[in-house]
């Protein structure tokens, strides 16, 4: 099962990120997880939010360049070695990871890892075969 990640173009200029997050706050959108990829020229802000549709509309209405990307959220045990295990499973199956970022929650035992992989369906199957559950959208949005 995949979840919606919103990717936002961020010009390399002071205040851009502040502006985008202020906009989201104005739309009453709560950010669950966030990651920024930066190049010499620009950045890409990737966020998981409680209300993806609302966030998307708000950003589009403000004329910001955005896209929605399907990513996998995997709940893993918050102990040493869990992430390595998940990555090894993907690697053994020949699924490559474009990028990933992780966050912990108020539930002390669980951490979530967001994976962007080449073949999302295949990765979901592989995880299922190994007893790793991919989180449902609502589960992540409602954290």
């Amino acid at each position, binding site marked *: 099962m995949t979840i919606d*990640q919103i*990717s936002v*173009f*961020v*010009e*390399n*200029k002071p205040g*851009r990120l502040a502006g985008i997050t202020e906009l989201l706050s104005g739309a009453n959108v709560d950010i669950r997880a966030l990651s920024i*990829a930066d*190049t010499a*020229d*620009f950045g*890409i802000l*990737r966020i998981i939010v409680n209300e993806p549709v609302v966030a998307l509309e708000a950003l*589009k209405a403000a*004329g*910001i*360049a*955005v*896209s929605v*990307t399907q990513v996998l959220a995997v709940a893993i045990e918050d102990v040493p070695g869990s992430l390595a295990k998940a990555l090894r499973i993907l690697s053994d199956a020949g699924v490559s990871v*474009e990028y990933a970022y992780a966050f912990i929650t108020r539930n002390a035992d669980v951490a979530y890892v967001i994976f*962007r992989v080449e073949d999302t369906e295949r990765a979901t199957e592989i995880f299922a075969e190994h007893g790793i559950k991919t989180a449902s959208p609502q589960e992540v949005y409602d954290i």
Partner: protein
Amino acid sequence: MGKRYYQEDMETASYDLMYRIQTERLAKTVKHAYDHVAPYRAKMKAKGVEPGDIKSPEDLKKLPFLSKDDLRDEYPYGYLAKPLSDCVRIQSTSGTTGKRVVAFYTQADIDLWDECCARAIVAVGGTNEDVVHVSYGYGLFTGGPGLNGGSHKVGSLTLPMSSGNTDRQIQFMTDLGSTILCCTPSYAAFLAENINNAGLRDQIKLKAGIFGAEAWSEEMRRDIERNLGIRAYDIYGLTEISGPGVSFECEEQTGMHVNEDHFIAEIIDPETEEVLPLGSKGELVFSCITKEAFPLLRYRTRDICVLTRDACSCGRTLVKMHKPMGRSDDMLIIRGVNVFPSQIETVLLGQGYPANYQIIVDRVNYTDTFEVQVEMTTEMFSDEVKKVAQREKDLLTALKSMLGISPKVTLVSPRTIARSEGKAVRVIDKRKI
């Protein structure tokens, strides 16, 4: 001390003599153009003018104007006035697709062009004892071939260095004792910096430089003079008229003498097209009066400047044009290359970007910086860094291929490029020249 003039009779001709020469040559060229250049004949007919109506330089104002667009519309042979079998060379403007202008030359045209450049070299003290180091580009660009030809006429030892490869430039300069440097002022400043950084200043023998093809300030002149221990002179020209040497600076360094036995200069109001008196600021217009293959009449240069005819301490009587102060169109000259905003627009649209962009030109350490800001759109955006980077790279390649020079491309947020009164500000030229 060598000769003061290359062609003293013309360079110091009395006003009356020059007037007679111009009258005779103009009449001949107008007839030549009318007889052999169909589009110009059509323009003259449309204006109700016949060759016989042009009896003196004052009658020039009766003739129709020519613009770069006229030449482009008839690319490549429309304004050619001689059979190709009589032509020996072409040169071309630095603009690319859609903006290219090709000029044709007979051997006589090359000779007169070379002579004009020879006058410029002699005016800065050049003789057959000199080593003339030509670091203008060679090829379609007129800079290299023009000064090269002029140097040959003077009998100087000519080093056809062309542009680039700075280490080699400096090595030849020191090994062969170059005395006169010909290049763009920004390249001269760059060479000066490299020579001084390498501690080679006392090993160069340069005494003068002839620098043109781009705008430069008095301050930049003094800097180059100080950093190279030379005197720096301006030169002006354009491919459509011949190339460098249409006008050149003398020892007085207060403007460029127009070779008016070959080219008649006028200043017009760019809006009303009315001819303005000497001393007025307006658009410079040239009429070729000796050229065979490409005899353009009343060609609008789009350069804004002033003509004066005050007595010059060098003894030349040729009318002087002051440094161009700007353009009457939107053309930018960046690192010596002609750039039209419309070319950038064409590339952006072709690559899928919106035609909302901003060109920012500045000059840092005497070198032009050139940035194109492009608005990112949701369509062109992707979550994948490599996809966005690849599109950016493709855009850069396309811009370079269109313009001949590489800008820095900056992707900016949508709808952030400043607009004034609903119209976007396309060009920000911060250069203080």
